[in-house]
């Protein structure tokens, strides 16, 4: 038995080491860890919010779909409601420098102020590592991480995949519903949905 232990240990270590690389993010699995700078230049990480529900929102101010949600105050409302309930809301920008949606730290602060965003922090991911780790495809693209660090929702903001502002009325908001489920202690009913919007402008 003792002969096999080092081997088993090595195999386990290999698996652990390989897991974040191999696994595509999936509901029920641990959310990929990350650190990123916010608009203030402060380094934030997913780990610091352990024990809290965390919403991740990918955004790009130049994207018509993002504009739909921000123009009418829909996204800001969601953010404020969530933060009021003790949820951490991280907005991420994975646009590469020179591409649509990219912001410098100073621009990030300005954008957060002018939009009246209610998010906890705006994180900058110009290299796109976080976006790629989450396989984030669109802006907006939403993820919810539960108190234990597991993904419990990934997909679109709502069920109206269009840039038409009128579509906000009558849309079923998946993020609000999922956060409602969390608050009520229920499993998330719609855990996966189709993300929709503009392609994230990743670095080549």
């Amino acid at each position: 038995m003792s002969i096999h232990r080092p081997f088993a240990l090595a195999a386990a270590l290999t698996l652990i080491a390989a897991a974040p690389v191999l696994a595509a993010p999936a509901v029920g699995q641990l959310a990929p860890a990350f650190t990123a700078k916010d608009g203030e230049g402060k380094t934030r990480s997913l780990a610091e919010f352990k024990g809290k529900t965390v919403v991740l929102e990918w955004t790009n101010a130049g994207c018509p779909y993002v504009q739909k949600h921000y123009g009418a105050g829909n996204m800001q409302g969601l953010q404020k409601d969530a933060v009021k309930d003790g949820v951490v809301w991280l907005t991420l920008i994975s646009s590469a420098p020179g591409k649509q949606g990219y912001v410098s730290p100073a621009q990030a602060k300005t954008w957060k102020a002018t939009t009246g965003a209610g998010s906890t922090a705006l994180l900058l991911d110009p290299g796109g590592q976080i976006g790629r780790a989450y396989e984030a495809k669109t802006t907006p693209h939403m993820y919810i991480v539960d108190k234990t660090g597991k993904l419990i929702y990934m997909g679109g903001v709502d069920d109206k995949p269009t840039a038409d502002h009128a579509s906000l009325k009558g849309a079923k908001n998946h993020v609000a519903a999922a956060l409602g489920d969390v608050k009520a202690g229920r499993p998330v009913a719609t855990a996966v949905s189709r993300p929709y919007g503009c392609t994230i402008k990743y670095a080549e």
Partner: protein
Amino acid sequence: MTRFFARLLAAFAVLGAAPAMAQPVDTGHLVAELVARDQSIAPGATTYVALRQKIDKGWHTYWRNSGDSGEATRIAWTLPAGWTAGDIVWPAPTRQPTGPLMNYGYQGEVLLPVPVTAPADAKPGQSVTLKAAATFLVCEEICVPEDAVLTLSLPVVEGLAEPNPAWSGPIAKALSDAPTPAAFTSVFAKQGTTLALAITGQALKGADVSQAYFFPFDSTVIDHAKPQVIERGPDGLTLTLTPGYAFQEGDGPKAMAGVLSLGDKAYEIGATAGAPPPGASGLGAPPSKAVGGGGGALGLPLAAAFAFLGGLILNLMPCVFPILAMKAASLAGHAHERRVAQGQGLAFLAGVLATFLALAVALIAVRAGGAAVGWGFQLQSPPVVAGLALLMLAVALNLSGVFEVGSSLQGVGTGLAGKRGMAGAFFTGALAVVVAAPCTAPFMAPALGWALTQSAPAAITVFLALGLGFAAPFALAAFVPGLLTRLPKPGPWMEGFKKLMAFPMYGAAAWLVWVLTIQAGNTALARIFAAAVVLALAAWLLGVAQHRRAQGGKPLALAGIGGALAVVAALAAVWPSYGEPQAASSAAAEGGTANVPYEAYSPEKLAAAQAAGKPVFVNFTAAWCVTCQVNEKVALTSQGVADAFKQTGAVYLKADWTLKDAVIEAELAKHGRAGVPLYLVYGAKGGEGVILPQILTEGLIVRALKDAQGR
């Protein structure tokens, strides 16, 4: 009479109301317009009205499933009472890759036909206005939602409608090209992290499925950006897909509908969950489409003939020249003992065939294991290159007379030496094949490319034909009496010739070391040189031991040390594994001395250059490929070629296959090739690449670039 009257009225209507009239609207990045198949419509009849999008260059609109992002075009109709419009008949989309993501849509010009039905009580003579509010997302890298309210006036006329001369043809074509439900059996099954989609049907038997692609209607069933791996079966094909979000919940979907595109044809399919039928797989990857003389269209006899010819020509390539020179010398040595010469000729043939067989079996086995390898694959591994470098050095030292293998020189003509000579000839044959890998001869590439997509027996037949062609000149020479007697008589000159031939072998060793540094970086240099020095010392010790034994001594210790050192040197060269090369030392970075600046190849760069309307020259090469290097030195870096690149504005992309690379391997396979070199020229106006011959000349490249400018 009423009929006549109606017609007359209709004629007036046609003249007066101007039939099927519409105004195009420029929405910013495309021009939208409603166009009708017919000039008029009869009461109760159905016609087709299409939304025409003339999209700006570089921009695209989306299919019904837009893929990872984007949004499909939508039309909201406002029609007179009783009139109805159906769903858009979507043409098969094309893939629009964006960074790491995949979208499905249309570029250039697209017609989205919609069936429009007039009510039975529509009044002939009347002209109705069809109004469509079209909304669409147009994307280049950024996306812009655009919309247009389009109108079309259509006269109601009794009787058969007159086709609209401008649009009846294009709309009929759009309708006939559109994917239609096919009588296929489609089954899908999630297998671990992959999703197998098996499609069988009469129309798929023996069809060219090399371009097969599944476009799902639902955007959640597959990961659009992941490659779709094609496997053929006797009754159809299997696509290996990556499951999408929908499979994260419960058992996943029970049905999956979409479009199976085969490139030139597209079918609508509805797959259900279940066990894939055996007839949908088992024949491996599809043979590539025949493009400009590619291997796809070859049959076994032709492929074998090509391989034989390629093998013959391989004798003239620089890789094997030193070894064949040795062989020639040995043949000359036995020229006047026919039986020995014939025996050795056959042994050489056996050595060549056995090695080709071993290579073919290894290649097929590795490919069956799923690895992307092709001709020359053994040279993509640094330990193999290092080992070969040492082998070349050992052969060179042997030729220089540092040590002997056996004692062939002393005992020419004796029975024992005859046997040893046989083993030597066999070994020479094997060695010749091993070193031949870096050279690809004309005719060889299409044959091998074809072989690797076929069943194992067919592939082995082609490899053996190659071996036969390669060994034929020497094996046959021994059986042509006139030829043997014409060779110079053996004598002291042979010793000198042998020593002279050592130098090409030293050269070969040096060249392999160069290949190794490109593969594994500068640190490999110290290791291989240390191993080489130790090997040289070992060879010298062995030589001394052999010399003493010849004088009656028993230099066991000396021979032992020599043998041990040789083993150490060989081990040090192949183990532990080599590191990655530093970026700066890769072959791609080095070639900056060439007159034509180039970029490393990627399918995205190719697409970008084509989108920019530039001709593209793609050079698939490898540091270990001598044919490639010769072409680059002789033709590709000449002034004329550099000028032609400048004049035509052509983009030069280099695909370096020195190390294993699945993307390049797939690209080679797509053009029916199993190895490098491969030269492709893409026209400025897009479309498929044209394959250039494997031996390039300046004039040939210049002409190809000029052609590409206008194509």
